[in-house]
């Protein structure tokens, strides 16, 4: 059976500010437990959306910097 895979990180919200990349700190306040509850929901939503034939972009990977 193919491995299920993992959600590595989730960035919530939209950033309207053209001078920085804002981070929603709500989950920093709620803590890891709240995120652990929310992450499977995000996973389920992603898998549901799979049926809508999401457009996939595969740009070339950049050269290593190290």
């Amino acid at each position: 059976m193919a491995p299920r895979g993992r959600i590595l990180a989730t960035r919530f919200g939209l950033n309207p500010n053209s001078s920085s990349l804002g981070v929603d700190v709500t989950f920093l306040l709620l803590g890891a437990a709240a995120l652990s509850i929310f992450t499977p929901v995000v996973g389920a939503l992603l898998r549901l959306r799979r049926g809508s034939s999401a457009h996939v972009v595969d740009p070339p990977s950049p050269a290593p910097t190290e």
Partner: protein
Amino acid sequence: MRAERFGAIAELVRPRALVFVDRAFARRLGAASSAWASDPAGDGDVGGRPLSAPIEAHLQLTNRCDVGCQGCYTGATAHGAPGEWGAEEWKRALDHLAERGVFHLALGGGESAILPWLGEVAAHARARGMTPNLTTSGLAGLDDLLPIAHLFGQINVSMDGIGPAYAAVRGSDRFAEADRALRLLRARKREVGINVVVTRLNFADLDEIIRYARRRRLNEVELLRFKPAGRGAAAFAGLTCSDAQHRAFWPTVSRAARRHRIRIRVDCSYTPMLVHHRLDRRLLERLAVYGCIAGDFLVGARANGALSACSFAPPAPGRPRLDDLAAYWEKDDAFGPFRAWRDADEPCRSCEYHSLCRGGCKAVALHLEGDARRPDPECPRVVDFRRGRAGRIRLPIAV
């Protein structure tokens, strides 16, 4: 969805989120990359190398604005910048960004709301699958902005203080106009918030500002560190927060967020002030909380299309334009010091948060130290390290 070395980045619309997944999850979603076979160690390694393209582009559509704020980071004027792009150039550049898989745009200025073609550009971004977001002062172009507000994912109005405090920070007393703009925009859509540039003058008012946002039924407050760019370079020494305020930032913000129950976002340059409080590293990773991600997660472009690592960084070496992004992105030395964060001095090198914080804000380091590679000199850990080192040097002399 976009394939990445580590797996893929998938976009959710409800809730609004970019989700980073490993290769196995990406395959289940229908994504795959030809590069995976030759790089087995890259599976799940977010941040190990730059992304394949930015997730977000910050576009200064114009540098025209006649408000004349004392700390304006672009040094905007009523006449704008030489060689500013028009709608056709921006639309071509958006096509290029869409081909690279960029998800979000942050449109700003100057005052982009005065551009007669703002709606045309925003609609073009939507048609190419990207979400345009907007920052406005609310002081000009409002009548034209209201009918096209629906095109934007999120609109924030710059609001650095309430009542007379607004004038103290921005240099002109136009709070009532900005407040009116907020109320009218909020009547059109839910996704309206405020951007607050935090300075030593308004730090004590943060709770009041956040309460105001809640009262206006806004959906978020975005807190921005004062940056030494544009007119902000000359005003920096007088407006940047004190060391004590930087150390108090997270406790102040977290208290206000709990009290007023509103979403608060903090900008990337505040990461040193967050990790100073030893927040859960794993949680930060899972929320993709990073410090300087310029030239990696994000890029900036000036009104003439000049590409930069972020809005505060000088134009990238070689002066590429936004529509040169694909070729420039692949260069080994692309974005100079902004991608060289792994080669850090102490105390960053031994900091357990370094792979997240990436040395703090390079715009501040460039201004205060003359070298963007140096650790962010306003980071509390850096301040403590330098105080300690100075003490060790002075001691034998004193004896």
